[in-house]
């Protein structure tokens, strides 16, 4: 069990009032708040160790390099990667997925090959594959969705076939909350010789993820959705695949030898980290991982499961509340509509009560089309949220309903 009251004390942003009400932050699928420990780690780095990494011989440069690589080590253990060679620092999940698209897919895919995607992907795990298809002549195919928002699995064998070279799937939907059966998809894909890239932006922050147990080829995730700062993300890749890929960005840091006419690449993982990296960001992410480890990812996951079950029960009692996505298995978020009240109106009214939620298509327009809505509301939970936050959300939604009752 998480001690939410204690956890909240670690988050300086939580104490404030918004429009005269205590802040209730329920937009964690967009980005999470940062604990004092993460903020301090970044400040401490700049105050005591700031230098460029992997080149200087002076004390600060050694210290900065050590801390940057220590952060990589923390990420490696957090997702149980075989080695730090498998862990590449990027800016975010989008960049991680683009590395796979540019450095692997564009290099190896040919006309007639197929890329399998799902209709519930965030744009960041769809648009890169549309571009790969455009440039290589490969074809996109889509796993079907059941009306309840789960992926249809009984005909997966007809979609993932000998023609499939790559399956790109999110482990957890940022709208429906669906947790996808990644293990089964990976097994099927590997049987036909296809590779699997998993978007972990909404799973790595919330559930234990073990890249070796899941047998993933690539995993992408962002630091800022798991208590870390913005501008730091991770691409995990299997070593043989990373070796077969060309660098995505060229320049300093990623080379071993440079001649006037040509160059040789650094060892993994530096081959994919051209230019001075986000050193402070990586260190901040390392501190975020320490924080999550201290809580225990199983506890984080259990906490969110309990909270989302409570939220569904509480919110479904509101007249006109419509939930999207499956009830089980479900991540810690709820996408919904409230009668005919437009989500932007709902979010604006909720904000006047200090409740922060997201309204819109959540960067998944094809999914919104599938749901036949232009927009939905989304409340997403994390370690510092509790039942009282859900109660505040529920009563603010009732007031929203009342306010719009004579018009919508």
């Amino acid at each position: 069990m998480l001690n939410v009251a204690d956890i909240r004390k670690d988050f300086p942003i939580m104490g404030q009032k918004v429009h005269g009400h205590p802040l209730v932050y329920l937009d964690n699928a967009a980005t999470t708040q940062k604990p004092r420990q993460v903020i301090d780690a970044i400040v401490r780095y700049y105050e005591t160790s700031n230098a460029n990494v992997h080149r200087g011989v002076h004390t600060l440069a050694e210290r900065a390099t050590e801390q940057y690589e220590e952060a990589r080590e923390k990420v490696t253990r957090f997702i149980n990667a075989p080695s730090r060679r498998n862990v590449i620092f990027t800016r975010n999940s989008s960049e991680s997925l683009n590395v796979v698209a540019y450095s692997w897919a564009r290099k190896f895919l040919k006309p007639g090959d197929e890329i399998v995607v799902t209709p519930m992907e965030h744009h960041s795990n769809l648009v890169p594959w549309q571009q790969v298809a455009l440039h290589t002549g490969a074809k996109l195919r889509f796993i079907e969705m059941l009306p309840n928002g789960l992926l249809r699995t009984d005909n997966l064998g007809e979609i993932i076939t000998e023609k499939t070279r790559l399956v790109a799937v999110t482990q957890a939907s940022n709208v429906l909350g669906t947790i996808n059966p990644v293990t089964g998809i990976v097994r099927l894909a590997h049987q036909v010789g296809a590779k699997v890239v998993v978007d972990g932006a909404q799973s790595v922050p919330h559930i234990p993820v073990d890249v070796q147990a899941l047998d993933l080829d690539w995993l992408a995730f962002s630091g800022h959705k798991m208590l870390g700062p913005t501008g730091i993300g991770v691409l995990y890749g299997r070593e043989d695949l990373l070796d077969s890929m060309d660098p995505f960005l060229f320049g300093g840091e990623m080379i071993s030898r440079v001649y006037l006419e040509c160059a040789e690449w650094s060892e993994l993982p530096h081959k994919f980290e051209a230019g001075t990296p986000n050193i402070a960001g990586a260190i901040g992410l390392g501190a975020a991982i320490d924080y999550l480890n201290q809580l225990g990812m199983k506890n984080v996951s259990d906490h969110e499961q309990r909270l989302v079950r409570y939220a569904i029960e509480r919110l479904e009692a509101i007249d006109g509340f419509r939930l999207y996505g499956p009830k089980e298995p479900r991540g810690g978020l709820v996408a919904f509509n409230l009668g005919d009240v437009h989500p932007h109106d709902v979010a604006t009214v909720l904000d006047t009560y200090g409740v922060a939620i997201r309204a819109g298509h959540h960067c998944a327009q094809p999914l919104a089309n599938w749901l036949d809505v232009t927009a939905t509301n989304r409340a997403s939970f994390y370690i510092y949220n509790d039942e009282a936050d859900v109660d505040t959300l529920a009563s603010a939604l009732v007031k929203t309903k009342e306010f719009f009752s004579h018009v919508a």
Partner: protein
Amino acid sequence: MSLEDIYKDAIMDHYARPRGRGKLEHPVIVYHAHNPTCGDEIEVQANVEDGRIQDVRFSGHGCSISQASASMMTVAMKGKTLPEAKATLAKFLGMMRGEPGSYKELGEVQALQGVSRLPVRLKCATLAWHALEVGLSQHESGQSPRGPVHVLESKDL
């Protein structure tokens, strides 16, 4: 900021009972605007006779602010000469940008002023007005009224 500062009575009234909703039979001005952040779409149509906006309508879907604002726009624009319409548009956009000055001449449209303090909702309030603005300038340069769907970005403000 309270709810009543944003959702003024005039806004709620236009949202509940929209004026000028629908389409014209032979419009000379048609402009379809789309707000990519929320998926809202509004089509504005107008007819011009003897240099005057003889009729103006809107259709589409969106939040209370965008629908009420479109409705108010049709009331404000109907019967105006083209120079008058452009002056009103400029006045409205100035108000929404938060420029100081008197906006009394805008009448009930002033109810939208509170929205100018909500940057994210600003686009909702200006969508229909921008659509008319572009439609008018297309009309004046002799362009065909039925163009593709145009996306208005925040830089359009």
